[in-house]
């Protein structure tokens, strides 16, 4: 708990460094950074639910879309500014997330996953069917971007990047605070052993509900920012199979149950398709193979790899003794 200020400090420095690097990038790289930052903040808040509470939700693709459409509707039809639309999108998404959670938490395990999958599919279909609000399959065009403050001598793309990085920073810090709080501890108890948690009088319903709402809120923020930066959104971006599963992959490849792991996971899985653009016909194939290799050989994700590497560096040689030589006496 005392570590929060440290983490805040380190994160702020990382943020500043990232912004500094971003000023040297071209628009394409900036866009890749934006995608990474948005997906990383999605993944971080998702990990609060998946990694810390132990529930696999496949409804988050739709929640992401809900945030995006709410932001889009706010800034166009309702004529609100971006800075109003953003928190509203977060709150609306959190509200819907709460309803989803109240339904879905009646189940657990694969039932929970499939139930949220169903809800995710309903959500995606709603974006198509409610075309009066969302533009249906044609997409929602003409979403105003987040305007660059007049006193800032930077262009739109750099500003977008700063906002996406800031979102990641805020999400990361909020998640740090959350998982260290009593609620966070209760979430971990739910993940580890629900019956024991109950027997210890831990309010498991409240804990997991708040984890779901927490992730919903930040998912909504990410959605609204995504919509504003792209000026256009379509239901295609919010499918269960695309976004829903991608989030899971980000977190698992990054390393569940650490908050920095998903950020790395997002970096890898965002950079990978871009890096593989060259090999067009084989890029998806390579993506699949890499995912498989990762799961097989780095089951604890990127974070696990790094932790293991660090552990090896920290105590060289001494523990390398053949196990059979270690006596108990």
């Amino acid at each position, binding site marked *: 708990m005392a570590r929060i200020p440290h983490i805040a400090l380190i994160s702020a420095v990382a943020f500043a460094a990232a912004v500094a690097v971003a000023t040297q990038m071209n628009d394409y790289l900036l866009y890749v950074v934006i995608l990474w930052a948005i997906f990383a903040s999605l993944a971080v808040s998702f990990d609060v639910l998946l990694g810390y509470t132990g529930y696999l939700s496949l409804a988050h693709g739709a929640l992401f879309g809900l945030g995006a459409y709410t932001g889009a509707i706010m800034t166009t039809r309702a004529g609100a500014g971006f800075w109003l639309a953003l928190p509203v999108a977060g709150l609306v998404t959190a509200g819907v997330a709460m309803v989803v959670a109240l339904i879905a938490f009646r189940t657990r395990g694969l039932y929970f996953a499939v139930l949220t999958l169903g809800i995710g599919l309903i959500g995606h279909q709603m974006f198509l069917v409610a075309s009066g609000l969302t533009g249906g399959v044609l997409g929602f065009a003409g979403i105003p971007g987040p305007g660059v403050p007049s006193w800032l001598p930077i262009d739109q793309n750099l500003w977008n990047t700063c906002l996406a990085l800031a979102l990641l920073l805020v999400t990361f810090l909020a998640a740090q605070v959350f998982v260290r709080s009593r609620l966070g501890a209760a979430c971990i108890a739910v993940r580890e052993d629900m019956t024991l948690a109950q027997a210890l009088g831990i309010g498991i319903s409240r804990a997991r509900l708040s984890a779901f709402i927490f992730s919903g809120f930040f998912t909504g923020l990410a959605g609204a920012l995504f919509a504003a930066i792209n000026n256009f959104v379509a239901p295609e971006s919010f499918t269960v199979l695309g976004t829903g599963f991608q989030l899971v992959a980000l977190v698992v490849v990054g390393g569940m149950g650490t908050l920095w792991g998903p950020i790395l996971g997002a970096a890898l899985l965002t950079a990978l398709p871009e890096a593989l653009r060259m090999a067009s016909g084989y890029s998806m194939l390579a993506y699949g193979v890499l995912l498989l290799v990762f799961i097989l050989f780095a089951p604890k994700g990127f974070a696990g790899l790094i932790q293991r590497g660090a552990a090896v560096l920290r105590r060289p040689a001494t*523990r390398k003794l053949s*196990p*059979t030589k*270690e*006596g*108990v*006496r």
Partner: protein
Amino acid sequence: MLEISDLRAGYGRMAVLHGLDLTAMPGRPTVVMGANGVGKTTLCRAITGLIPVWSGGIRLDGHDITCLSPAQRVRRGIALVPEGRQVFPDMTVRDNLRLGAYLRGEPGPSDLEQVEALFPILADRRRQTAGLLSGGEQQMLALARALMSRPRLLILDEPSQGLAPKAVAQVAEAVQRISESGVAILLVEQNMTLAETVGEWAVVLQGGRAEVEGPASTVLKSGAVEASYLGH
């Protein structure tokens, strides 16, 4: 018939057994004692092939079985009543028993009668799913199931755990009878009552090795067991 020499095994990089020697033979039920966590269960798992052996040898009737799969070991006559209940929770009691005889094909009615005579409660609960039996009932089922394979070496890992005194006495009696029928017994136990009733030969594990060994009557009274419990 079972000879273990210089056995090393463990989990991950942590060794639990450090060169353990042990023999078991019919007509001389062997009890293995030792403090919690000394590696008794690990020994059972290594003998049955559930965990790999790092080095050393396990021989059964003079044949090296160190590298055989669990199934091949069962086929050669080893059966384990594992620690904890380890029954098939969603299957009926009857199906659990049938599985005990898996390698022999379908069990004959006499097999079932035999074990059900030994543990009448199992006859009453034939069609109940095993997971809903009480702890002690499940323990009996596990023992009965092991007998269904007609083992030549029966390993029991703390069978008295969670049993009512009367049931412990029943188990003791059953194990004695099984032993008399020519089955070699390796009994891991902390319950002195059961150890004393059944054991002819006793081994005390300490530090991953068989530290004290001898006729049960001497070893169990010598205080070696108490010492091992305190001395780690």
